[in-house]
Protein backbone atom coordinates (compact mmCIF):
# COMPACT_ATOMS: atom_id res chain seq x y z
CA UNK A 1 0.00 0.00 0.00
CA UNK A 2 1.22 3.49 -0.90
CA UNK A 3 0.64 5.98 1.91
CA UNK A 4 -1.51 9.09 1.20
CA UNK A 5 0.45 11.87 -0.49
CA UNK A 6 0.14 15.58 0.03
CA UNK A 7 1.13 17.49 -3.13
CA UNK A 8 0.71 20.92 -4.64
CA UNK A 9 -0.88 21.37 -8.08
CA UNK A 10 -0.69 24.56 -10.08
CA UNK A 11 -2.52 25.50 -13.28
CA UNK A 12 -1.56 28.42 -15.50
CA UNK A 13 -1.49 29.91 -18.99
CA UNK A 14 -5.28 29.59 -19.18
CA UNK A 15 -5.50 25.98 -17.90
CA UNK A 16 -6.77 27.41 -14.59
CA UNK A 17 -9.97 28.41 -16.39
CA UNK A 18 -10.96 24.72 -16.40
CA UNK A 19 -10.57 24.69 -12.60
CA UNK A 20 -12.85 27.55 -11.60
CA UNK A 21 -10.02 30.01 -12.25
CA UNK A 22 -8.11 28.72 -9.22
CA UNK A 23 -4.37 28.41 -9.85
CA UNK A 24 -3.04 26.65 -6.77
CA UNK A 25 -4.51 23.54 -5.21
CA UNK A 26 -3.10 21.75 -2.18
CA UNK A 27 -4.40 18.19 -2.47
CA UNK A 28 -4.12 14.89 -0.65
CA UNK A 29 -4.07 11.75 -2.76
CA UNK A 30 -5.57 8.81 -0.82
CA UNK A 31 -3.57 5.66 -0.20
CA UNK A 32 -3.91 3.05 -2.92
CA UNK A 33 -2.35 -0.36 -3.70
CA UNK A 34 -0.12 1.00 -6.52
CA UNK A 35 2.28 3.94 -6.14
CA UNK A 36 0.92 7.23 -7.47
CA UNK A 37 2.36 8.30 -10.81
CA UNK A 38 1.45 11.13 -13.21
CA UNK A 39 -0.84 8.78 -15.14
CA UNK A 40 -2.96 8.03 -12.08
CA UNK A 41 -2.73 11.67 -10.97
CA UNK A 42 -4.31 12.78 -14.27
CA UNK A 43 -7.15 10.31 -13.81
CA UNK A 44 -7.62 11.61 -10.25
CA UNK A 45 -7.63 15.26 -11.43
CA UNK A 46 -10.22 14.44 -14.08
CA UNK A 47 -12.46 12.81 -11.47
CA UNK A 48 -11.96 15.25 -8.62
CA UNK A 49 -10.85 18.69 -9.78
CA UNK A 50 -11.79 19.35 -13.40
CA UNK A 51 -14.86 21.53 -13.56
CA UNK A 52 -15.56 21.69 -17.29
CA UNK A 53 -14.69 20.45 -20.75
CA UNK A 54 -12.27 17.65 -19.70
CA UNK A 55 -11.23 17.14 -23.35
CA UNK A 56 -9.42 20.48 -23.18
CA UNK A 57 -7.15 19.10 -20.48
CA UNK A 58 -6.79 15.33 -20.92
CA UNK A 59 -6.64 13.26 -24.07
CA UNK A 60 -6.67 9.50 -23.58
CA UNK A 61 -4.49 8.84 -20.52
CA UNK A 62 -2.24 11.89 -21.01
CA UNK A 63 -2.50 15.68 -21.18
CA UNK A 64 -3.76 17.36 -24.31
CA UNK A 65 -0.86 18.25 -26.64
CA UNK A 66 0.10 21.87 -25.98
CA UNK A 67 -0.14 21.63 -22.19
CA UNK A 68 3.29 21.77 -20.53
CA UNK A 69 3.96 19.84 -17.34
CA UNK A 70 6.64 20.75 -14.80
CA UNK A 71 7.47 18.42 -11.93
CA UNK A 72 9.30 20.25 -9.15
CA UNK A 73 10.17 23.02 -11.62
CA UNK A 74 11.55 20.67 -14.29
CA UNK A 75 10.05 19.70 -17.65
CA UNK A 76 8.28 16.35 -17.22
CA UNK A 77 10.00 15.17 -20.41
CA UNK A 78 13.14 14.89 -18.26
CA UNK A 79 11.36 13.08 -15.44
CA UNK A 80 9.74 10.09 -17.11
CA UNK A 81 6.48 11.83 -18.06
CA UNK A 82 3.45 9.64 -17.20
CA UNK A 83 5.61 7.10 -15.35
CA UNK A 84 7.11 9.55 -12.86
CA UNK A 85 6.35 8.31 -9.33
CA UNK A 86 5.04 11.07 -7.12
CA UNK A 87 6.66 11.80 -3.76
CA UNK A 88 5.10 13.50 -0.78
CA UNK A 89 5.32 17.34 -1.09
CA UNK A 90 5.90 17.26 -4.87
CA UNK A 91 4.86 20.27 -6.91
CA UNK A 92 3.26 19.69 -10.32
CA UNK A 93 2.54 22.60 -12.65
CA UNK A 94 0.37 22.48 -15.77
CA UNK A 95 0.69 25.40 -18.19
CA UNK A 96 -1.44 25.72 -21.28
CA UNK A 97 0.28 27.10 -24.37
CA UNK A 98 -2.99 27.05 -26.27
CA UNK A 99 -4.42 30.35 -25.14
CA UNK A 100 -4.18 33.62 -27.02
CA UNK A 101 -0.88 35.19 -28.03
Amino acid at each position, binding site marked *: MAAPLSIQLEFGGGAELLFDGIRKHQVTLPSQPEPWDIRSLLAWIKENLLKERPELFVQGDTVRPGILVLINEADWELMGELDYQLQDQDNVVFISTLH*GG
Partner: protein
Amino acid sequence: MPAPVLCQSCGAGRAALRRPKTGQALCRECFVAAFEAEVHGTIVAARLFQPGETVAVGASGGKDSTVLAHLLRLLNQRHGYGLRLLLLSVDEGIAGYRDDSLDAVRRNRGRLGLPLHVVSYRELYGWSMDRIARHVGPKNNCTFCGVFRRQALDRGAALLGADKIATGHNADDVAETVLMNFLRGDVGRLRRCAGILTGSEGALPRCKPLKHAYEKEIVLYAYFQGLDYFSTECVYAPNAYRGHARTLLKDLEAIRPSAVADLVHSGERLAVREDVRMPTQGTCQRCGYLSSQPLCKACVLLEGLNRGLPRLGIGKPSRMQKVLTDAEKPEVGFREDSQQASRAIRTVDF
Protein backbone atom coordinates in the same frame (compact mmCIF):
# COMPACT_ATOMS: atom_id res chain seq x y z
CA MET B 1 13.21 8.61 -7.62
CA PRO B 2 15.18 9.14 -10.85
CA ALA B 3 18.49 11.02 -10.57
CA PRO B 4 18.08 14.60 -11.79
CA VAL B 5 19.24 15.15 -15.38
CA LEU B 6 22.18 17.53 -15.60
CA CYS B 7 22.39 20.48 -17.98
CA GLN B 8 24.06 19.51 -21.25
CA SER B 9 25.55 22.97 -21.64
CA CYS B 10 27.19 23.83 -18.30
CA GLY B 11 27.21 20.31 -16.90
CA ALA B 12 26.55 21.68 -13.43
CA GLY B 13 22.93 22.84 -13.07
CA ARG B 14 19.89 20.59 -12.87
CA ALA B 15 18.20 20.51 -16.29
CA ALA B 16 14.88 22.36 -16.33
CA LEU B 17 13.64 21.56 -19.82
CA ARG B 18 14.21 19.59 -22.95
CA ARG B 19 14.35 21.94 -25.94
CA PRO B 20 11.86 20.90 -28.60
CA LYS B 21 14.03 21.91 -31.57
CA THR B 22 17.21 20.13 -30.54
CA GLY B 23 16.27 17.69 -27.78
CA GLN B 24 18.97 19.31 -25.61
CA ALA B 25 18.41 19.34 -21.83
CA LEU B 26 19.29 22.72 -20.30
CA CYS B 27 19.23 24.27 -16.85
CA ARG B 28 17.20 27.40 -16.30
CA GLU B 29 20.12 29.83 -16.62
CA CYS B 30 21.57 28.22 -19.76
CA PHE B 31 18.12 28.10 -21.39
CA VAL B 32 17.37 31.76 -20.66
CA ALA B 33 20.79 32.77 -22.04
CA ALA B 34 20.40 30.58 -25.16
CA PHE B 35 16.87 31.78 -25.86
CA GLU B 36 17.84 35.45 -25.63
CA ALA B 37 20.94 34.87 -27.76
CA GLU B 38 18.87 33.12 -30.44
CA VAL B 39 16.32 35.90 -30.72
CA HIS B 40 19.20 38.38 -30.96
CA GLY B 41 20.69 36.14 -33.67
CA THR B 42 17.40 36.19 -35.61
CA ILE B 43 17.22 39.99 -35.38
CA VAL B 44 20.80 40.44 -36.58
CA ALA B 45 20.70 37.79 -39.32
CA ALA B 46 17.50 39.19 -40.86
CA ARG B 47 18.55 42.83 -40.27
CA LEU B 48 15.18 43.54 -38.73
CA PHE B 49 16.05 46.96 -37.28
CA GLN B 50 18.15 50.00 -38.13
CA PRO B 51 19.63 52.31 -35.48
CA GLY B 52 17.38 55.27 -34.70
CA GLU B 53 14.14 53.55 -35.68
CA THR B 54 10.97 53.88 -33.67
CA VAL B 55 9.42 50.44 -33.26
CA ALA B 56 5.84 49.92 -32.15
CA VAL B 57 5.49 46.59 -30.37
CA GLY B 58 1.98 45.20 -30.79
CA ALA B 59 1.01 44.43 -27.18
CA SER B 60 -2.08 42.31 -26.55
CA GLY B 61 -1.27 41.37 -22.96
CA GLY B 62 -0.88 37.73 -24.08
CA LYS B 63 2.21 35.55 -23.70
CA ASP B 64 3.87 36.19 -27.06
CA SER B 65 3.70 39.95 -27.08
CA THR B 66 4.64 40.10 -23.38
CA VAL B 67 7.78 38.06 -24.01
CA LEU B 68 8.51 40.07 -27.17
CA ALA B 69 8.30 43.44 -25.40
CA HIS B 70 10.47 42.15 -22.55
CA LEU B 71 13.10 40.77 -24.97
CA LEU B 72 13.23 43.81 -27.25
CA ARG B 73 13.76 46.13 -24.31
CA LEU B 74 16.47 43.85 -22.91
CA LEU B 75 18.27 43.23 -26.22
CA ASN B 76 18.02 46.89 -27.24
CA GLN B 77 19.93 47.76 -24.07
CA ARG B 78 22.32 44.83 -24.10
CA HIS B 79 23.35 45.12 -27.73
CA GLY B 80 22.81 48.83 -28.35
CA TYR B 81 20.30 48.54 -31.21
CA GLY B 82 19.53 52.23 -30.77
CA LEU B 83 15.76 51.74 -31.03
CA ARG B 84 12.99 53.80 -29.54
CA LEU B 85 10.42 51.25 -28.36
CA LEU B 86 6.71 51.87 -27.82
CA LEU B 87 3.94 49.55 -26.75
CA LEU B 88 0.85 49.73 -28.94
CA SER B 89 -2.39 48.08 -27.87
CA VAL B 90 -5.67 47.81 -29.67
CA ASP B 91 -8.86 48.14 -27.67
CA GLU B 92 -11.51 46.30 -29.67
CA GLY B 93 -14.20 47.26 -27.20
CA ILE B 94 -14.90 43.81 -25.79
CA ALA B 95 -16.19 44.23 -22.27
CA GLY B 96 -14.43 42.05 -19.71
CA TYR B 97 -11.98 40.37 -22.07
CA ARG B 98 -10.13 43.39 -23.33
CA ASP B 99 -10.36 45.34 -20.12
CA ASP B 100 -8.52 42.56 -18.31
CA SER B 101 -5.88 42.09 -20.99
CA LEU B 102 -5.25 45.85 -21.13
CA ASP B 103 -4.68 45.71 -17.38
CA ALA B 104 -1.96 43.12 -18.03
CA VAL B 105 -0.42 45.43 -20.66
CA ARG B 106 -0.49 48.32 -18.18
CA ARG B 107 1.25 46.26 -15.50
CA ASN B 108 3.97 45.38 -18.02
CA ARG B 109 4.32 48.97 -19.13
CA GLY B 110 5.17 49.81 -15.52
CA ARG B 111 7.66 46.99 -15.30
CA LEU B 112 9.31 47.74 -18.66
CA GLY B 113 9.21 51.51 -18.43
CA LEU B 114 8.07 51.83 -22.05
CA PRO B 115 5.41 54.29 -23.23
CA LEU B 116 2.03 52.70 -23.97
CA HIS B 117 -0.53 53.89 -26.50
CA VAL B 118 -4.00 52.41 -26.90
CA VAL B 119 -6.07 52.82 -30.08
CA SER B 120 -9.68 51.79 -30.01
CA TYR B 121 -11.98 50.41 -32.69
CA ARG B 122 -14.48 53.00 -31.57
CA GLU B 123 -12.23 55.91 -32.42
CA LEU B 124 -10.80 54.33 -35.58
CA TYR B 125 -13.97 52.87 -37.07
CA GLY B 126 -16.83 54.28 -35.04
CA TRP B 127 -17.82 50.76 -33.94
CA SER B 128 -16.77 48.68 -30.92
CA MET B 129 -16.54 44.89 -31.29
CA ASP B 130 -19.41 44.40 -28.84
CA ARG B 131 -21.62 46.60 -30.98
CA ILE B 132 -20.46 44.87 -34.18
CA ALA B 133 -21.21 41.48 -32.60
CA ARG B 134 -24.74 42.56 -31.81
CA HIS B 135 -25.20 43.46 -35.47
CA VAL B 136 -23.54 40.55 -37.23
CA GLY B 137 -24.35 37.72 -34.83
CA PRO B 138 -21.99 35.31 -33.14
CA LYS B 139 -20.70 33.45 -36.21
CA ASN B 140 -18.99 36.12 -38.26
CA ASN B 141 -17.51 38.52 -35.81
CA CYS B 142 -13.98 37.08 -35.89
CA THR B 143 -13.79 38.14 -39.53
CA PHE B 144 -14.35 41.70 -38.37
CA CYS B 145 -12.11 41.32 -35.35
CA GLY B 146 -9.15 40.06 -37.41
CA VAL B 147 -9.45 42.51 -40.30
CA PHE B 148 -9.96 45.53 -38.08
CA ARG B 149 -7.18 44.54 -35.70
CA ARG B 150 -4.61 44.25 -38.46
CA GLN B 151 -5.38 47.72 -39.77
CA ALA B 152 -5.71 49.20 -36.30
CA LEU B 153 -2.08 48.34 -35.52
CA ASP B 154 -1.00 50.02 -38.77
CA ARG B 155 -3.07 53.10 -38.23
CA GLY B 156 -2.06 53.39 -34.58
CA ALA B 157 1.63 52.95 -35.39
CA ALA B 158 1.41 55.54 -38.16
CA LEU B 159 -0.23 58.00 -35.76
CA LEU B 160 2.66 57.53 -33.36
CA GLY B 161 5.25 58.13 -36.07
CA ALA B 162 6.65 54.60 -35.81
CA ASP B 163 8.91 53.25 -38.57
CA LYS B 164 8.09 49.63 -38.00
CA ILE B 165 5.74 47.27 -36.20
CA ALA B 166 6.98 44.22 -34.31
CA THR B 167 4.48 41.45 -33.57
CA GLY B 168 4.74 38.41 -31.31
CA HIS B 169 4.08 35.72 -33.93
CA ASN B 170 6.04 32.62 -32.98
CA ALA B 171 7.17 29.52 -34.89
CA ASP B 172 3.96 27.66 -34.04
CA ASP B 173 1.82 30.53 -35.38
CA VAL B 174 3.81 30.67 -38.60
CA ALA B 175 3.73 26.87 -39.04
CA GLU B 176 -0.03 26.92 -38.48
CA THR B 177 -0.51 29.64 -41.09
CA VAL B 178 1.70 27.84 -43.61
CA LEU B 179 -0.40 24.72 -43.07
CA MET B 180 -3.69 26.60 -43.46
CA ASN B 181 -2.64 28.43 -46.60
CA PHE B 182 -1.33 25.20 -48.07
CA LEU B 183 -4.57 23.36 -47.31
CA ARG B 184 -6.54 26.17 -48.91
CA GLY B 185 -4.22 26.50 -51.88
CA ASP B 186 -3.77 30.17 -51.12
CA VAL B 187 -0.53 30.72 -53.02
CA GLY B 188 -0.39 34.47 -52.48
CA ARG B 189 -0.59 34.20 -48.70
CA LEU B 190 1.56 31.07 -48.60
CA ARG B 191 4.42 32.98 -50.13
CA ARG B 192 4.07 35.93 -47.74
CA CYS B 193 3.17 34.31 -44.43
CA ALA B 194 6.56 32.76 -43.72
CA GLY B 195 8.45 36.02 -44.32
CA ILE B 196 10.10 37.57 -41.27
CA LEU B 197 9.86 41.16 -42.51
CA THR B 198 6.92 42.13 -44.69
CA GLY B 199 5.24 45.13 -46.25
CA SER B 200 7.00 48.21 -47.51
CA GLU B 201 5.12 50.46 -49.92
CA GLY B 202 2.17 52.14 -48.31
CA ALA B 203 1.92 50.10 -45.14
CA LEU B 204 4.46 50.13 -42.33
CA PRO B 205 6.92 47.24 -42.41
CA ARG B 206 6.10 44.48 -39.94
CA CYS B 207 8.51 42.04 -38.40
CA LYS B 208 8.32 38.88 -36.32
CA PRO B 209 11.42 38.59 -34.12
CA LEU B 210 10.02 35.43 -32.45
CA LYS B 211 9.42 33.68 -35.76
CA HIS B 212 11.82 30.85 -34.90
CA ALA B 213 10.87 30.58 -31.24
CA TYR B 214 8.75 27.61 -30.22
CA GLU B 215 5.63 28.28 -28.22
CA LYS B 216 6.82 25.87 -25.53
CA GLU B 217 9.99 27.90 -25.04
CA ILE B 218 8.15 31.24 -25.04
CA VAL B 219 5.82 29.98 -22.32
CA LEU B 220 8.65 28.49 -20.24
CA TYR B 221 10.75 31.64 -20.67
CA ALA B 222 7.82 33.69 -19.36
CA TYR B 223 7.37 31.23 -16.50
CA PHE B 224 11.04 31.16 -15.48
CA GLN B 225 11.35 34.96 -15.73
CA GLY B 226 8.13 35.49 -13.79
CA LEU B 227 6.50 37.50 -16.59
CA ASP B 228 2.87 38.32 -16.06
CA TYR B 229 0.52 37.74 -18.98
CA PHE B 230 -3.15 37.35 -19.71
CA SER B 231 -4.55 34.12 -21.09
CA THR B 232 -8.29 34.20 -21.44
CA GLU B 233 -9.77 33.18 -24.76
CA CYS B 234 -11.43 35.90 -26.83
CA VAL B 235 -15.12 35.72 -25.96
CA TYR B 236 -16.07 35.79 -29.63
CA ALA B 237 -15.87 32.42 -31.36
CA PRO B 238 -12.31 31.85 -32.55
CA ASN B 239 -11.58 30.93 -36.14
CA ALA B 240 -12.58 27.25 -36.29
CA TYR B 241 -10.33 26.42 -39.23
CA ARG B 242 -7.26 27.76 -37.46
CA GLY B 243 -8.27 25.79 -34.36
CA HIS B 244 -8.16 22.54 -36.35
CA ALA B 245 -4.85 23.43 -37.99
CA ARG B 246 -3.49 24.11 -34.51
CA THR B 247 -4.65 20.79 -33.12
CA LEU B 248 -3.16 18.99 -36.10
CA LEU B 249 0.14 20.79 -35.59
CA LYS B 250 0.22 20.03 -31.85
CA ASP B 251 -0.49 16.34 -32.55
CA LEU B 252 2.33 16.27 -35.12
CA GLU B 253 4.68 18.04 -32.72
CA ALA B 254 3.95 15.48 -29.99
CA ILE B 255 5.24 12.72 -32.30
CA ARG B 256 8.01 14.72 -33.95
CA PRO B 257 9.00 17.98 -32.25
CA SER B 258 10.83 19.31 -35.31
CA ALA B 259 7.51 19.43 -37.23
CA VAL B 260 7.05 23.09 -36.27
CA ALA B 261 10.46 24.24 -37.50
CA ASP B 262 10.12 22.00 -40.56
CA LEU B 263 6.85 23.67 -41.58
CA VAL B 264 8.32 27.14 -41.10
CA HIS B 265 11.24 26.05 -43.28
CA SER B 266 8.88 24.64 -45.93
CA GLY B 267 7.03 27.94 -46.03
CA GLU B 268 10.31 29.78 -46.57
CA ARG B 269 11.60 27.45 -49.23
CA LEU B 270 8.45 26.93 -51.30
CA ALA B 271 8.95 28.44 -54.72
CA VAL B 272 5.98 29.61 -56.75
CA ARG B 273 6.20 28.79 -60.47
CA GLU B 274 6.75 31.81 -62.70
CA ASP B 275 3.53 31.32 -64.63
CA VAL B 276 1.31 31.35 -61.52
CA ARG B 277 -0.63 34.59 -61.49
CA MET B 278 -0.28 36.41 -58.19
CA PRO B 279 -2.79 38.97 -56.98
CA THR B 280 -1.51 42.46 -57.72
CA GLN B 281 -1.15 44.69 -54.68
CA GLY B 282 -2.67 48.11 -54.98
CA THR B 283 -4.10 50.50 -52.46
CA CYS B 284 -7.63 50.99 -51.23
CA GLN B 285 -9.52 53.78 -53.08
CA ARG B 286 -10.98 54.95 -49.84
CA CYS B 287 -8.37 54.75 -47.07
CA GLY B 288 -5.11 54.10 -48.91
CA TYR B 289 -4.35 50.85 -47.09
CA LEU B 290 -2.72 48.00 -49.05
CA SER B 291 -5.31 45.99 -50.95
CA SER B 292 -5.47 43.72 -53.99
CA GLN B 293 -9.04 44.94 -54.59
CA PRO B 294 -10.32 48.48 -55.26
CA LEU B 295 -11.55 48.65 -51.65
CA CYS B 296 -9.75 47.04 -48.73
CA LYS B 297 -11.49 44.44 -46.63
CA ALA B 298 -11.90 46.79 -43.65
CA CYS B 299 -13.58 49.49 -45.75
CA VAL B 300 -15.95 46.92 -47.24
CA LEU B 301 -16.87 45.54 -43.81
CA LEU B 302 -17.28 49.03 -42.42
CA GLU B 303 -19.43 50.11 -45.33
CA GLY B 304 -21.64 47.09 -44.76
CA LEU B 305 -22.01 47.96 -41.08
CA ASN B 306 -22.80 51.60 -41.76
CA ARG B 307 -25.36 50.72 -44.41
CA GLY B 308 -27.10 48.25 -42.14
CA LEU B 309 -25.92 45.34 -44.31
CA PRO B 310 -23.32 43.88 -41.99
CA ARG B 311 -22.90 40.62 -43.91
CA LEU B 312 -21.88 42.44 -47.06
CA GLY B 313 -18.15 41.95 -46.66
CA ILE B 314 -18.37 38.29 -45.75
CA GLY B 315 -18.20 36.11 -48.82
CA LYS B 316 -17.10 36.33 -52.41
CA PRO B 317 -14.83 39.35 -52.83
CA SER B 318 -15.69 40.02 -56.48
CA ARG B 319 -19.38 40.29 -55.72
CA MET B 320 -19.14 42.73 -52.84
CA GLN B 321 -16.46 44.79 -54.58
CA LYS B 322 -18.79 45.20 -57.53
CA VAL B 323 -21.66 46.19 -55.29
CA LEU B 324 -19.60 48.80 -53.50
CA THR B 325 -17.64 50.26 -56.38
CA ASP B 326 -20.86 50.48 -58.39
CA ALA B 327 -22.39 52.19 -55.43
CA GLU B 328 -19.64 54.79 -55.45
CA LYS B 329 -21.35 56.15 -58.60
CA PRO B 330 -25.18 56.34 -58.60
CA GLU B 331 -27.19 55.67 -55.48
CA VAL B 332 -30.02 54.13 -57.52
CA GLY B 333 -29.92 50.39 -57.96
CA PHE B 334 -27.58 49.93 -55.07
CA ARG B 335 -30.17 48.64 -52.70
CA GLU B 336 -31.37 45.85 -54.97
CA ASP B 337 -27.85 44.80 -55.79
CA SER B 338 -26.66 44.74 -52.26
CA GLN B 339 -29.65 42.84 -51.02
CA GLN B 340 -29.00 40.18 -53.61
CA ALA B 341 -25.40 40.15 -52.58
CA SER B 342 -26.17 39.71 -48.93
CA ARG B 343 -28.50 36.84 -49.73
CA ALA B 344 -25.90 35.17 -51.91
CA ILE B 345 -23.29 35.40 -49.18
CA ARG B 346 -22.92 32.38 -46.99
CA THR B 347 -19.35 31.38 -46.43
CA VAL B 348 -16.64 32.86 -44.33
CA ASP B 349 -13.43 32.35 -46.24
CA PHE B 350 -10.86 34.05 -44.20
